[in-house]
């Protein structure tokens, strides 16, 4: 279906891809321009900040690649009563949510940009890229994605109980904090760094994994901290989301509309 969109409405599809890429580059370029002007941020060099921005762009690329069908903004599906329609499909809910947002053709732009920035930053930093390092990169990206998805599903549980009020809560949890996740936390006091690695995990979206991949895990924490955090958050999200889903299938939703799926 994604390929069909690209082939049938090529102009609009390419415009959408371009808009996505420009938007993401703008978010990360603001921080990089600051680093360039000031020769680095909080002890991180310009090239290290570029590496961190490339990691952030890769995360955005993966997000768009796999999450373009509101399957990660799950509160929208619940709040709009669209879950009912998913129950009626001849595929399990899990399979629909995993595959529903996959857009490999039109959603790969940011991933490509992220890969280019990664290669540039690796070359400038003279990083030694081994197969083990690549595995670590993939693992960190996976952990970051798990944190994003788990947090979205955790807060989206509210939409089972208050579908109107919490319809956009996933958007707040994901996009509301996206800019914060591009801030390098190096040089900031502990009372800023610690909450952003625990309560709000924005520090784990780009800064912490980037420094780990550069061989400098910050705050004397183990490189495995993001994985442990992702696991804990995923378990919590699974528990509460299932509770909410059980409530939903018992009580139903007044947001369901039989004549269409969009409110």
């Amino acid at each position: 279906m994604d390929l069909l969109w690209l082939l049938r409405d090529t102009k609009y599809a390419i415009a959408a891809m371009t808009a996505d890429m420009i938007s993401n580059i703008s978010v990360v370029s603001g921080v990089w321009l600051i680093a360039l002007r000031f020769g680095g941020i909080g002890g991180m060099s310009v090239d290290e900040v570029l590496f961190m921005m490339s990691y952030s762009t890769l995360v955005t690329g993966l997000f768009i690649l796999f999450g373009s069908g509101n399957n990660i903004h799950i509160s929208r599906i619940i709040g709009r009563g669209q879950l009912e329609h998913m129950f009626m499909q001849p595929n399990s809910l899990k399979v629909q949510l995993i595959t529903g947002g996959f857009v490999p053709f039109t959603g790969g732009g940011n991933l490509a940009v992220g890969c280019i920035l990664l290669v540039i930053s690796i070359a400038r930093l003279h990083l030694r890229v081994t197969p083990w390092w690549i595995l670590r990169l993939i693992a960190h990206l996976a952990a970051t994605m798990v944190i994003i998805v788990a947090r979205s599903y955790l807060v989206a549980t509210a939409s089972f109980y208050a579908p109107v009020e919490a319809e956009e809560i996933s958007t707040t949890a994901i996009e509301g904090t996206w800019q914060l996740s591009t801030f390098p936390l190096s040089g900031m006091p502990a009372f800023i760094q610690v909450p952003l690695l625990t309560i709000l995990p924005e520090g784990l979206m780009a800064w912490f994994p980037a420094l780990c991949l550069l061989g400098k895990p910050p705050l004397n924490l183990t490189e495995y901290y993001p994985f442990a955090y992702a696991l804990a958050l995923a378990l919590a999200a699974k528990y509460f989301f299932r509770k909410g889903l059980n409530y939903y299938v018992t009580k139903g939703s007044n947001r369901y509309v039989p004549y269409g799926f969009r409110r």
Partner: protein
Amino acid sequence: MFKYIKTAHMACLEKMNGGVLYLMPDIFIKICTLIPLIYMWKAVMASGADIGMSMEQMLTYACVGALLSDMMVVRTQASGWLSEGVLMKLYGRPLSVLGQLFAQTAGRWMPNLALFSLPMALLSPLFGVNLRPASPWFVVSLFLCISLGFAIDILFACLSIKLRNMNWLIDRIRAAIVAILSGTVIPVSLLPLGLAESMKYQPFASLGGATLSIFTGIAEPAGVLRMQAVWNIVLWPAALIIFKKSQEGMVSYRG
């Protein structure tokens, strides 16, 4: 005038329809973004680079930019309302369409100003931020900034009309470009790679960044105000003429 004030009042109440608690997640995220932003700038300025601004000025710049973000780069709901059919409904009311748009936009600023900007302004001394304006001309500049913001927004709405409701795309590209070029993320005068000189005279530079430069005292008010006035004089007639011609081309999915 009373009709527009009432429209703004209704827009303010509409935003708070879900109750104050409904707005709290967004307010919380804004606070969680502002505080690290202040400390990031502290970390950056601690490098000792000579950029013609003191740390106090930079922190004030970043803080005021965040507190008045809605006014620094004005965004109305014109583009979104176009596809939703709400813009069409405005024509059925005994008020000017653009007047209603401006009143509703201004009304929607109020909850954010009351729940985020005002409390954070009172707390800002705790973070070492001084919110005293360097010049009273800041008020005039803010007015010109808001006025220019509305003109630019109307032009983007006309672009949406012309491109048959590709408003999501236009919004994304617009937000990306304006964020950098308006000087609200990083002052235009600090842009590296020679961009500072070349970007000084483009219209987006007369938005938030210009007002903030007067507030912090990093620019002379006369030059900044002159540039803002020029762009207002150039863009407002263009916006009104193009909007008048674009009205017939409006296409909406709903009504």
